[in-house]
């Protein structure tokens, strides 16, 4: 089943730019970027059980770092994306250090405060971020190749998203992933089993921020402008909603949630009069009938149908 799903997904990804318009490819680029954001949030919340509400800030750090590297220093875009990821990861590690002293709602509030503070920085550090005028980002470049359209950027966005997905699976299956889950289930039990709880939490924050920074770098492949308004708490809540709707604690859920919820949101944009009601109703229905998320819901239905 998994093989069939992966084959279908691969076929869709390959066919998409050949049979659709740039508008659809733009949506695909955006959804794949949000997929990587969701994978990052999945690592810190879903795998490690640490409530982080600063994802938009790390995403913004990635966008500005990658954008400035490419625009001002002319770095090839793979390097720019990596710079975005590493800049976000460095700050994520620092936040992880602070997070060692907090948990639950206190941790959520502290990370929320960090997110708000970063948005203020984006808005007021005029010399670097362009401040309230926003920042123009030069088209991504690599050895003379310039990505000026969504279709130009698409193969690289897909490749980066796939690489980050593979990395997530590797982390989840490694000793580190087991440590994340042990911390999530019980810090005391994890410590008794020899898991370095403090270090594991810091690493989770750092990796999660790295994913968000990479997503920010991906954004600079197909977008040439960023404004701090796009990096507020709503973006964090949007990513959190995608992860919860998809299924907290599952990689498939994070991916499925990003794509399903992103598509729903875009489809609802075509029905302005009803979208707020429909948006709310869909969320309520998900929470009522699929509390474990879309991915688990579909898996249960599939298993039920096979046993019937």
């Amino acid at each position, binding site marked *: 089943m998994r093989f069939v799903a992966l084959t279908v997904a691969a076929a869709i990804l390959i066919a998409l730019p050949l049979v659709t*318009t*740039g*508008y*659809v490819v*733009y*949506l695909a680029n*955006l959804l794949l970027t949000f997929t990587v954001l969701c994978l990052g949030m999945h690592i810190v919340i879903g795998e490690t059980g640490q409530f982080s509400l600063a994802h938009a800030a790390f995403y913004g750090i990635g966008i500005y770092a990658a954008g400035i590297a490419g625009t001002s220093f002319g770095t090839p875009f793979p390097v720019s994306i990596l710079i975005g990821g590493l800049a976000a990861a460095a700050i994520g590690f620092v936040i992880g250090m602070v997070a060692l002293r907090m948990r639950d709602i206190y941790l959520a509030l502290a990370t929320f405060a960090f997110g708000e503070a970063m948005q203020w920085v984006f*808005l*007021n550090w005029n010399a670097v971020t362009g*401040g*309230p*005028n*926003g920042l*123009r980002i030069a088209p991504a470049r690599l050895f003379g190749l310039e990505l*000026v359209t*969504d279709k130009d950027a698409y193969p690289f966005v897909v490749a980066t998203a796939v690489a980050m997905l593979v990395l997530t699976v590797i982390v989840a299956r490694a000793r580190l992933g087991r440590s994340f889950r042990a911390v999530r289930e019980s810090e005391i039990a994890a410590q008794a089993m020899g898991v370095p709880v403090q270090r594991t939490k810091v690493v989770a924050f750092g990796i999660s921020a790295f994913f968000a920074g990479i997503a920010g770098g991906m954004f600079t492949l197909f*977008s*040439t*402008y960023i*404004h*701090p*308004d*796009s990096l507020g708490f709503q973006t964090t809540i949007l990513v959190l909603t995608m992860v919860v709707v998809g299924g907290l604690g599952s990689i498939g859920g994070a991916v499925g949630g990003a794509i399903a919820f992103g598509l729903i949101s*875009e489809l609802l*944009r*075509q029905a*302005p*009069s009803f*979208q*707020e009601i429909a948006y709310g109703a869909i969320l309520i229905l998900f929470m009522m009938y699929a509390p474990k998320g879309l991915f688990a819901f579909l898996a249960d239905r599939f298993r039920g149908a096979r046993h019937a």
Partner: protein
Amino acid sequence: MTVIKSTALAAGLAAALLGTGPAAAQQEPGLTPTTIKIGMFAPLSGANMAYGFDVANAAKMYYDKINKEGGIHGRKIEVVLEDDRCNANDLVAAVKKLVEQDQVFMLNGGSCSAAVVAAKEYVVRNKVPLVMLNASGDGALYPPTDYIFGAFSISQYAVGGAMIDFAAKTFGAKKVAYVNHDDAYGAWNLEGAKADAEASKVDLAVESVNPTINDVTAPFLKLRAANPDALLIVTYARPAALMIKKAAEMGFNKPIILSVTGTANLSQLMQNVGGPDALKNFYVQDVLADLPGGPKIKWVYDMYKQSYPDLAAKPDHPQAYMPYGIPSAMSIVKALQAAGPNPTREKVLEAMKTLNFDSGVMAGPVVFGPSERAANKATIFIKFDGTNQTLQPGVYSSRWKFKG
């Protein structure tokens, strides 16, 4: 052999003609012999709907009027409308859908400045004419490009400058307290205000606040300590109401002047500031040619009632910014007419650059030029005491000029 050659030549010519004929016609998307497709986008849902919903309706009703009068050189205007949610990602998605999927001839949209700037690179690269609805959109207008026109309501640079101009000329203010936002709007209008303050020898005491501020005591006390001759508030509705209320509580009796961005509903403002006592020495800026609903612009409100009887019957409709949609639609119609019976995007863009007309809706004329992309720079001021609105004499503008 000659016959074969001639036949081949004729066939070649025919193929060339057949081949290039339709290709030439297809070069201009959104055009048929009977229609011109225009892509509109505005916030049609969510918290920012008031900025664009009825503005888009106003533009649509103007296009309907033109269609009823026979269209433009025989072509009817066909509108495709998208919701941009006042959000950069959604706005770019809407623009890309209109251009690439719906294949519109040109764009008429944008009510939110920061969001509309996100589409700048795309429309310029694809050479699609974008005529904004009511966004000031200064970030997309400066430096000027060949493809983007806007500020039909007003440029934010002009908002700030005109506020100073009014305070200096009407009250002889030498020192003014200036409250703006710590965002793009705030940066733009403060730059305009500084230009006029310098020209009028007015000292500025500035406090930039967050649009979501809940308590304005600290910024107000700082401004009052500067002993200003007038308090100028260039913010959105919430900080504006908080500041006016605080000024009344603290016994501030100098003129308070509110920018056009500060309220969409004066009676609601009166309630939010705690009643008419807070508005004893209060003035509000507007960009229309007359008081809302006044005789000069009554025709717009009448047209709205005729076009949308169901909406007009609802409370608070038309929304305050509704008339702003007319000048942008008028500009497009005038540019299309000037472009002749075989319009191209380039011809329309050239015509846009030469527009200079009075819309009959706004305080100043729509004036573009070789390097001028902001349509309106003029404002009026209204004295409001909680019940009555009194138009103040004169039209006020800014001395700010783009120094590219």
